[in-house]
């Protein structure tokens, strides 16, 4: 009897995957709950295991099932929703899946399935070659921190390995707060053992015996799946003497900043620490600590298994390897698209994303979360790579790409950037704590048509202060969305609004 894979990724549950799974199981068919392949506009996308391989159908709602059974979908029968072999779908075929190689394919609850799909080969290799060669492999791969800062992972690991002290920690930053990003969540839900393996590799490399994953309260499903994976790995003893604990944040965006995250893990207010000392020297509870994003850690098993050079062979410039690009907002084909660095923003938005969902013209694309710049279509030739984005006063961040159509009011988006900063400021440094509030007020005056030029000059000046005077990226990067909006869409700041 054919098995049917039905995703249980939170985004698929949000559009009815549970009802679909229930309706299939009711007919006595075996259902496997997987992660999502990331073609989210086709979710719930189900896959039937046939003699010819998996055949996908989507988007499938529970009401479609009588028709699908009638069409003999269990044997890959023809139907309006039939998508064919998922790996042949252009959206998947065009990708280079490394971090997401297994996501959406395997049963995230099964260690056997993980092993059958190449799991633990990276950790085994690390143990064969020893800590120093493990760090060298990660350094050679050119893998940079996928949380957004882009710091070379191998250098961070070496710093912690060389730091004196018996007690060291691996902290996984899973506080994925950027709007338009969901790759960490998808890995935790769809391939949790990859993250655990990556953490175990890091622990082996630097000599740590304890790891923490700091996740979000907004991710209850990811926490449940990942928490269960920790228990499974622990009872199977696959991580040997390395232990991992899942901790959950409480709605504070700033805790995605690594030092605020460490404070929060210690049970304190999530306030940013001044650096130095670096967390690599004095991190969690004052001990040397590796703080890496989910995607960074989840990529290291592949790097170890295939070698650093194989990973470094992909990408452009100093941006090596792949980036799981997360397409969201007003986009026709939202989802996660993993590709080597080097695509242009236009290719990402128009070719891969298919333009807007509304069918209206694209007006702005915010890259890198709420602290990322808004790009106009005139900059669609920008190459997706850390340095190229920085050269255009933007950032890649955690890989989020949020598309807006021509109905968006860029002054309102700029005001939101200040409001968000005010809401989420930890309060430690003055530019961010006070500047964000004054920025929102001043932007409101601009929107009300009060002394527009003078107030825009004030905002520009304020942004300089925020950029250079803030302790962390929350205050330091809020000028990106604000100034990009002002510079690229000046007309939106000079209109009379009838509100």
């Amino acid at each position: 009897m054919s098995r049917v894979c039905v995703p249980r990724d939170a985004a698929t549950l949000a559009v009815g995957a549970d009802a679909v799974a229930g309706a299939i199981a009711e007919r006595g068919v075996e259902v496997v709950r997987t992660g999502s392949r990331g073609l989210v506009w086709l979710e719930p996308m189900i896959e039937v295991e046939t003699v010819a391989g998996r055949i996908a159908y989507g988007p499938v709602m529970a009401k479609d099932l009588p028709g699908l059974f009638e069409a003999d979908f269990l044997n890959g029968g023809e139907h309006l929703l039939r998508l064919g072999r998922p790996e042949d779908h252009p959206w998947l075929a065009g990708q280079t899946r490394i971090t997401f190689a297994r996501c959406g394919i395997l049963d995230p609850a099964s260690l056997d399935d993980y092993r059958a799909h190449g799991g633990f080969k990276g950790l085994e290799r690390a143990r064969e070659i020893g800590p120093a060669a493990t760090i060298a492999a990660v350094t050679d791969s050119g893998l940079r921190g996928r949380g957004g800062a882009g710091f070379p992972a191998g250098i961070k690991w070496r710093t912690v390995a060389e730091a004196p002290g018996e007690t060291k920690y691996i902290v996984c930053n899973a506080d994925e707060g950027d709007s338009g990003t969901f790759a960490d969540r998808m890995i935790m839900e769809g391939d949790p053992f990859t993250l655990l393996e990556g953490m175990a590799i890091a622990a082996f490399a630097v000599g740590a015996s304890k790891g923490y994953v700091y996740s979000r309260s907004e991710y209850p499903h990811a926490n449940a799946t990942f928490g269960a994976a920790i228990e499974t790995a622990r009872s199977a003893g696959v991580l040997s003497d390395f232990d991992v604990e899942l901790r959950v944040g409480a709605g504070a965006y700033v805790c995605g900043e690594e030092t605020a995250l460490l404070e929060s893990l210690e049970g304190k207010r999530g306030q940013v620490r001044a650096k130095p000392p670096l967390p690599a020297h004095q991190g969690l509870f004052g001990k040397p600590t590796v703080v890496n994003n989910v995607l960074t850690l989840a990529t290291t098993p592949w790097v170890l298994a295939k070698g650093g050079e194989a990973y470094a062979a992909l990408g452009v410039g100093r941006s090596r390897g792949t980036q799981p690009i997360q397409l969201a907002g007003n986009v026709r084909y939202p989802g996660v698209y993993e590709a080597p660095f080097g695509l242009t923003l236009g290719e990402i938005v128009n070719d891969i994303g298919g333009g807007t969902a509304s069918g209206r013209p694209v007006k702005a694309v915010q890259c890198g979360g709420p602290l990322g710049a808004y790009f106009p279509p005139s900059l669609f030739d920008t190459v997706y790579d850390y340095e190229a984005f920085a050269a255009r006063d933007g950032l890649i961040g955690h890989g989020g790409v949020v598309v807006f159509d021509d109905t968006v009011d860029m002054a309102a988006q700029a005001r939101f950037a200040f409001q968000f900063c005010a809401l989420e400021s930890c309060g430690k440094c003055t530019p961010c704590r006070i500047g964000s509030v004054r920025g929102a007020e001043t932007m409101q005056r601009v929107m009300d048509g009060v002394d527009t030029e003078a107030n825009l000059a004030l905002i520009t000046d304020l942004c300089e202060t925020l950029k250079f005077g803030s302790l962390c990226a929350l205050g330091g990067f809020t000028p990106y969305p604000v100034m990009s909006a002002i510079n690229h869409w000046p007309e939106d700041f000079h209109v009379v609004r009838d509100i």
Partner: protein
Amino acid sequence: MTSLEPWRPERGEEIIAGLTRLDGAVLPMFHALQGAFGHVPKETVAMIAHALNLSRAEVFGALSFYHDFRHEPPGARLVKICRAESCQAMGGEAASRFLLADLGIDWGETTPDGAVTVEPVYCLGLCAVSPAALVDGQPLGRVDGMLLVEAARA
């Protein structure tokens, strides 16, 4: 929110005692208390301070920092709606306004009959099915105003 317990100090002490072995136990305690009672009762600040040998100021400082922790139990149904950029781009604000107008409340408020609480969140990671919400912990994507009202009142 079906399984909330009424606040009892002995139960609070018990929850706290069960977590003291953790390093940096303060947030896990807040979460466990809110999970049980729907909020973090103010009496627990002194209990946690005592259990962890911290000052009450340190514990209250942490409690008041995080958006999630409530000082009062929420309504019978808890609706969290994303207000971040991806959902903005897909009409999330209009959908939210429709629900809030229908319920006659503002963000963070509970209907006078205690039936529904609506809270803002900044990203549920459901950006590819924007606009998104979490209703009693169940994710909802591609919502509009009517769908939110249905989910809130169902």
